[in-house]
């Protein structure tokens, strides 16, 4: 599988990653090489094989009681944010 520059630009956009001009050729090359490498999986006979959903068989996803267990940590959590105001996270204007 060989990716084009356009493919990589599209993937980067989907992944919300800015890739600079200088970085681009290396990603086109290495991503193509990785896809060629994983291509060997296509040779494995997997008809009727159930895809693995969990490393441990018979595990049941637990449910917990629908009760409040946390107290308010908003101020502590927002101390890590770049921009907050009145308890809200600030982002660039979305609606003109």
């Amino acid at each position: 599988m060989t990716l084009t520059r356009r493919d990589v630009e599209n993937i980067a956009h989907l992944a919300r990653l800015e890739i600079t001009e200088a970085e681009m050729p290396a990603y086109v090359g290495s991503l193509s090489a990785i896809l060629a490498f994983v291509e060997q999986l296509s040779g494995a006979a997997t008809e009727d094989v159930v895809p693995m959903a969990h490393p441990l068989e018979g595990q049941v996803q637990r449910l917990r009681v629908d009760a409040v267990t946390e107290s308010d940590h908003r101020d502590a959590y927002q101390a890590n944010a770049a921009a907050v105001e009145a308890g809200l996270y600030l982002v660039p204007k979305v609606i003109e």
Partner: protein
Amino acid sequence: MSLHHATAAEIGRGLHSRKYSSVEVTSHFLDRIEKSNPLLNAFVTVTRERALDDARRADARLAKGEGGPLTGVPLVHKDIFCTAGILTSCGSRMLSNFVSPYDATVVERLDAAGMVLLGKTNMDEFAMGSSNETSYFGPVKNPWDTSRVPGGSSGGSAAAVAARLAPVATGTDTGGSIRQPGALTGLTGFKPTYGRVSRYGMIAFASSLDQAGVLAQSAEDAALVLGAIAGHDPRDSTSVDAPVPDYAAGLARPVRGLRIGIIREFFGEGLEAGTGAAVRAAIDSFRAEGAKVVELSLPNLPLSVPTYYVVAPAECSSNLSRYDGVRFGHRSRDPRDLIDLYKSTRGEGFGAEVKRRIMTGTYVLSAGYYDAYYLKAQKVRSLINADFRRAFEQVDVLMGPTTPTPAFAIGAKTDDPITMYLNDIYTIGANLAGLPAVSVPCGLVDGLPVGLQVIGPHFSEERLLAVAHAWQRATDWHRRLPAAYA
């Protein structure tokens, strides 16, 4: 014998018998860190004040005759574990300003056991790497030869314990990130069964594979720390609700009559001759001690690496979508709009290998490619899992090398991601199948440590530790330390 020649268990016993205080022990290790870390770069953060506070608290407990085997014993945490009030960087620029508001469960439990936190260790960025060269904070050097890598991604934890800057360390293992650096630095690297240890507060990479574990000087140390961190946690619904055995008490379990399977696929092309010879010699010693050794084929195991490089990037692309520059972590300056905020923040905040894996994952999950890559890989994963299950119908444990070669030179593999990925060729299988596995030192090749890997069925931690312990009672490889740090 100097303090740093003692294992964590031995230090614990010394503290209880009042041979020394935790403040003395802690100061000894803080001095060693100050002296050696500038070269090794094993730490992102040294928590000197916190360590001395912890030590004083531990001494007060010990003076009252309280505390357990780990009370007052220093340790270091891989910087992937959230520590309240302390930088938790995950080796990334993205989190280079992130001071966690809470403790990971692993951190909380070892704190409750009375352990003393010396600091947070360097690591491959978001645990994505096998050499500790992808860290935003620069590469870690291997104490056995500082021109070489310590392995990764828990490279800082491995280097810190190998140089005896700390008696023991935590790590995480998604594709070999405890066992591989353990092998390359002469340590006991223990990865428990998937779900055995809570992942609450452990920064996520690939959630169907990630598991916390220990980098230690001995099986006994690994047993003590594992015993403290294992068990169900209501805050991690993937942690398994099964009783935790007394791992330390189980160490003495006899291993006579052990049925060992040698994985044929682990001794093929690519295995460096000296490494292969050391591992074979170790297995021969088990045979001489009465173990029954058979050679087994796990035919799908060679597909582990390509399977992993579909599954792990897919899961990482999803997990790392949370880094958006809004709620925490790095944020770019003066974005044009919201999309540009995301893109420039992530473009600047992530390093090259993390971006490569996010893009690989985004591609294999994208419309039209899901069946060909992700679904196919999960099917091959079932085949690999079935290979292991069949093997464990015949044997108690599987053995082979942990890595194909001893530690390689810094920079030797950074230009070719696939060559780097193939370092984990022997370790990834256990992650894909969720199995516990341990690497124990079994020799030196040209002065560099070699690891013997022992893999067991789900929840066979006790047996793996007993096997490792029996090996360490018969050999002294785990007691060797690099001359410069003796």
